[in-house]
């Protein structure tokens, strides 16, 4: 063994992505390198800092590799928000492949400080609310909801809810104290946070495209990558890109089942809003995409083309499902 790569992330080791992607990925890399690479994984922010610091840690070489969300640092990766606009995502497996193509076309500049191994999304998120829950658009009025990203918070505001920002670990307590009435996350994340026990209803959307998703990246320090001998760099390359992104996406999709099961076991209401109702939501959400396009145009991008491309890419992979 000649190289040690340290991987840092914010989830506990038994969560789906660390267990079914990061660990197997590390083992695969170790095996394919013939034992010349050793990968050490540090879960749950063991090496210090808050999750938003992860990207900087990879960029600056505190560690070699991190798994994180660009959305943790709003304003820094505006391009990734194309995938976080309302009603964009299909399954995580399909959308993650589209995310990789989109990264290659538009996001190389935003991520030029690091070497990107994979880009992916989680399976479409939904509403988890205390009490009777949300059966129609009007039910959103005045609800205090915790949203994960800037775009989701804007969406919640547009829908009439009050977005409340807080770190993920504070969410279960805030739910039980009524600081928030509910939260917006994918099924997969409800399991470790025991959200099913804290809310009474879950609202999903009957639509070919889910409510929203969040962008994730698995990135490596540039110098660590460039410093590898050519053969070892090839090992990393062979475990990067669209296929790897697809793998994480699939893991995220598969993570949903236990969350749904827990909600059923808790006797919660699980709703799917009808296509007619969803159409009303989409109408209210439409100005957000327009606002984002204007914002991107202001920064010298072609926002409209980015949204159109993101949609087309997602459609191309989702169609093949």
């Amino acid at each position, binding site marked *: 063994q000649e190289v040690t790569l340290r991987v840092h992330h914010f989830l506990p080791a038994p969560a789906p992505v660390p267990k079914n992607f990061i660990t197997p990925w590390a083992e695969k890399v170790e095996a394919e390198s013939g034992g010349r690479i050793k990968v050490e994984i540090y879960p749950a922010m063991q090496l210090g800092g808050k999750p938003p610091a992860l990207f*900087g840690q990879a960029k*600056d070489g505190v560690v070699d590799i991190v798994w994180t969300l660009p959305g943790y640092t709003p304003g820094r990766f505006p391009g990734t928000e194309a995938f976080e606009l309302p009603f964009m995502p299909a399954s995580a497996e399909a959308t993650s492949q589209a995310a990789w193509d989109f990264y290659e076309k538009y996001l190389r500049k935003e991520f030029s400080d690091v070497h990107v191994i994979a880009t992916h999304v989680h399976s479409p998120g939904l509403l988890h609310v205390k009490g009777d829950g949300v059966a129609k658009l009007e039910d959103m009025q005045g609800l205090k909801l915790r949203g994960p990203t800037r775009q989701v918070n804007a969406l919640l505001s547009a829908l009439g809810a009050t977005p409340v920002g*807080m770190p993920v670990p*504070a969410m279960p307590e805030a739910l039980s*104290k009524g600081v928030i009435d509910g939260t917006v996350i994918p099924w997969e994340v409800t399991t470790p946070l025991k959200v099913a026990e804290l809310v009474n209803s879950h609202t999903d959307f009957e639509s070919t495209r889910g409510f929203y998703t969040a962008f994730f990246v698995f990135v490596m320090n540039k110098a660590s990558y460039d410093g590898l001998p050519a053969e070892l760099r090839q090992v990393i390359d062979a475990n990067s890109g669209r296929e790897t992104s697809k793998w994480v996406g699939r893991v995220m999709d598969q993570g949903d089942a236990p969350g749904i099961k827990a909600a059923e076991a808790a006797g919660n209401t699980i709703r799917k809003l009808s296509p007619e109702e969803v159409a009303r939501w989409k109408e209210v959400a439409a100005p957000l995409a327009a606002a984002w396009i204007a914002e991107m145009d202001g920064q010298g991008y072609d926002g409209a083309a980015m949204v159109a491309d993101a949609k087309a890419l997602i459609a191309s992979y989702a169609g093949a499902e």
Partner: protein
Amino acid sequence: MSGLALSALAFAAMLGMIFLRMPIGAAMLLTGFTGTWIVTGSTTPVLAQLKSLTYDTFSSYSLSIVPLFLLMGQFAAKSGMSESLFRAAADWLGHRKGGVAMAAVGACAGFGAVCGSSLATAATMGQVALPEMRRLRFSNALSTGVLAAGGTLGILIPPSVILVIYAILTEQNIIKMFAAALVPGILAAAGYMITVAIYARVSPDSAQVAPRVPYGQRFRNLARVWPVVAIFALVIGGIYLGWFTPTEAAAIGAIATGGYALAVGRLSRKDFADCVLAAASATAMIFLIVLGAQALNTFLALTQTPQAAADWVTQSGLSPWMVLALILACYLVFGCVMDSLSMILLTIPIFFPIVMALDFGLPPEETAIWFGILALMVVEVGLITPPVGLNLFIIHSLARDIPMSETYRGVAPFVISDLIRIAILAAFPVITLGLMRAMF
């Protein structure tokens, strides 16, 4: 060098620096930085991480409870709540043998319900109760001993700054920790009162009797403790009734206590400055050590020491109870020379994984909470064990004419009471966990 050997060496070096009087936070920071530098072979990780680590640590939502509870304690001390608590307790208990000392314990427990720090409780109640006991000719040993011990109730009874920090370090629910601390805290107060009673019997000259007070006055004075009751009910009750989060409760507590002090005319601009400056100093001291612990933990994680230590203990063949006894004994020894917060921050990253790897027949969350309460109890004993016991020093600073040796002698029976209580709580986890199980 293996990771474990490196961290053992680093710990030895750090303790050396600490015992040569380097500020504990500085020793932890420099050890952590140097260790990380050695393990990674480069200064880049340390320097790059430090760009955001300090701000990230200081801007923690859960840690913001700490300055708020400290401010609340300062306001409570200024507001005269301590006097009314002591007056009320002394009216009811003073006519018994040693009753005023028991009243001091009761008042400390009451003050502990609105103050998250032992030092503030000892200082505040000491100012009120010590002159009274000396006027009644209690022995110097008993009067200083009981107040130093009573001060620890500030942290044994929730709210409690150290419990907050333990909960954050080990990712436990603060509310459940507070619930678990309540019964042991009340047991501590009861144990101290029994100790006073025995003390008074064994050494009748130490403890005196105050004149009996008519019931009318007793009830009048009892009614004057309403602000303490109201604020405790609002802060702790509000958390349990699900009105707000612990951080919000601390904010409410600080504003309510400050507002009360203002309303009774005890919070002039100068008083406010005094409160802020005292809370500021304690806050800065705590956060610097927390930052040091972060730096140290990064280094320990890189060396894989916590896992290695846990593996080593589980393979050693020692029984879980034996390991627990050793850990608690370790705290008692360290407590003789170190303050409680530094001990918790230094040791929990190592001891906690060890304890969690052992089987005490409890679910993991209950093990974590129960061990947290036990650790809290043993480190708090450190506040009153010679030679370095911060509560002893605080009481000493209030009565410079009483030699330290008398205070050491006076506090000894209370230390014994602590040890008995800790043994009981370790043997019967249900005492700690019962209330929490009933509530959640």
